[in-house]
């Protein structure tokens, strides 16, 4: 498969009164054409900063890309000026934000917000653009789009606004769509509709999607591959089956066993991850997860683990994968998942 995006050693920091916050500390990942990569992590893990950096949407200063490359279609986006980025943003890369109320322009008709994109990036005439805008609204499932195109965002419900956002993002057939928690503010039934819509459109248009979320259920639904972020780094990455049925990093174990599943035995206590994420003005020495990790060894507090390879697609940064490390038992909930992985493989084999 062809690579659309390569992020290499990306480091982003912010200057604040309290000191320099190292929000992204060396992130590497690739994105292939037509696939969906989900980035999961807690608030403050750097997942949103990573995606905003790809769009070059972080305010600079106080933000700074202190290291790394973002190769989009082979071209590095890091040295690009704001003017050059304006030609890429909205055209080759579209973005959907979490909160559709604050990301649509409240003083502008919804249709006009789509037409604007079409005129700027597709060189359409205003008449053609309006027809296309109606077509796009119909495509994202908005009923009576001829009427809706002339309405303002406040006349739309939350789910409808998110659909309108998707229509704007898709107006110029972007190669890459970045969706930052696009369904977090929505109800489950509306969420299900939006996810189905995104998958449908992806199939039709062969868009690559970076999907940022903290909801593991949504990840299991949309992702081809998953990257788990913690304290500004990717700690584990793999295919969706590898992450859910054969996770290797204790943080991934923690995430998967801290939420109840609908078929779980309710009387067992949830395995909460103790403590809270580290302060990134002063990242801890060694593995940033070590203080919350019940499997932490001495080396975790001294030296950062490299990415260990588990398969061609599966990597994890934990010393537990070092050949000299003691064998540890993952939590019960994870062991139950692992059974699924092996049986799944057998079926395929």
């Amino acid at each position, binding site marked *: 498969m062809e690579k659309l995006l390569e992020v290499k050693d990306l480091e982003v920091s912010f200057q604040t009164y309290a000191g320099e916050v190292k929000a992204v500390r060396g992130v590497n990942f690739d994105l292939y054409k037509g696939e969906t990569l989900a980035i999961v992590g807690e608030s403050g893990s750097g997942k949103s900063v990573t995606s905003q950096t790809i769009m070059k949407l972080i305010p600079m200063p106080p933000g700074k890309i202190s290291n790394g490359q973002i190769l989009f279609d082979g071209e590095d986006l890091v040295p690009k000026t704001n003017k050059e980025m304006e030609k890429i943003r909205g055209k080759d890369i579209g973005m959907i934000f979490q909160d559709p109320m604050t990301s649509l322009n409240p003083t502008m008709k919804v249709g006009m917000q789509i037409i604007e994109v079409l005129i700027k990036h597709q060189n359409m005439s205003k008449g053609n653009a309006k027809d296309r805008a109606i077509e796009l609204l119909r495509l994202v499932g908005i009923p009576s789009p001829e009427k809706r195109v002339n309405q303002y965002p406040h006349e739309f419900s939350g789910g409808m606004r998110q659909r309108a956002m998707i229509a704007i993002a898709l107006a110029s057939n972007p190669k890459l769509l970045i969706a930052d928690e696009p369904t977090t503010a929505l*109800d489950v039934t509306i969420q299900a509709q939006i996810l*189905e819509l995104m998958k449908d459109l992806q199939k039709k248009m062969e868009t690559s999607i970076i999907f940022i979320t903290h909801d593991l259920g949504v990840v*299991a*639904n949309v992702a081809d591959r998953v990257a788990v972020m913690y304290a500004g780094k990717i700690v584990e990455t793999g295919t969706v089956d590898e992450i859910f049925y054969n996770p290797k990093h204790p943080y991934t174990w923690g995430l998967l066993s801290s939420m109840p*599943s*609908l078929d779980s035995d309710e009387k067992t206590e949830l395995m*909460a991850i*103790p403590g809270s994420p580290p302060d990134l003005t002063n990242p801890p020495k060694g593995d940033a997860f070590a203080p919350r990790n019940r499997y932490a060894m001495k080396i975790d507090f001294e030296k950062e683990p490299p990415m260990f390879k588990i398969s061609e697609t599966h990597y994890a940064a934990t010393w537990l994968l070092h050949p000299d490390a003691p064998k540890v038992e993952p939590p019960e909930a994870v062991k139950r998942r692992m059974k699924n992985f092996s049986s799944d493989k057998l079926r395929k084999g």
Partner: protein
Amino acid sequence: MNEMAEKQKLVEIKNLKQYFNIDKPNMVKAVDGITFDIYKGETLGLVGESGCGKSTTGRTIIRLYNATGGEVLFNGENVHGRKSRKELKKFNRKMQMIFQDPYASLNPRMTVADIIAEGIDIHGLAKNNAERMEQVYTLLETVGLNREHANRYPHEFSGGQRQRIGIARALAVKPDFIIADEPISALDVSIQAQVVNLMKKLQEEKGLTYLFIAHDLSMVKYISDRIGVMYFGKIVELADANDLYSNPIHPYTKSLLSAIPLPDPNYERNRKRIIYDPKEHGYSDNEEVKLREIRPGHLVSCSEKEFQEYKSHYS
């Protein structure tokens, strides 16, 4: 909660109604005649989508709103209706609330000690300052914080820690009944489990009764003994938590359950979503639609005709 015979009603909600903008064109029937009981020591989960009236139900029960109609009995006494200040104070001690937003629900200008002790002061539960602070320290430790936190301000805490402060404040007046309105939805996944475990532990230790309002159905199932599903101001189904998930009867419950994505890729690949259309019931005007008991403890909103169908199907 297994001894059915031992079940004692703590809260009885009878035909509760809460309308807004009454007699105006934009009248909203946020809660439209709901009836249910909450038993001593249990957790009743209330789920539904935004705008279904679940939060309004919680707020009306604790009298943050004056009910439009119906009554709420707490230990057999009506919470609504005419009350003197003294009588109200008595209720306020027995019923407490934990809010969704741990940032907006703590006064930023008060120290943690003052926030937690506000109820203690109002109800005169401490004889002197030393005793007051002793209670605050104990509460902080109960919710997993420590006594050094007492003199700090809310902004110095993370979301999970603030929610613990909110829980300590609710516990300060030794309530019997706590209404938790989406207490974990603003928190990160890894922190949600901490707060839920804490709430479960406190319930066991202090014999608390919870009304747990949420839209995250997997967490609700985990914490609740029974669950009520709300749709447009009405309860459409009320049943034992496991029973509701394994044998949903009302088409709306089925549709809600089928919409939840689970952290299991194989399940997700095969999940079929059921779409609910309220018109599918085809109720005529003279049909009475109300909660009826299909199986012991399993109530479903239905007409007489549907009742017979459900009964032959599911019991």
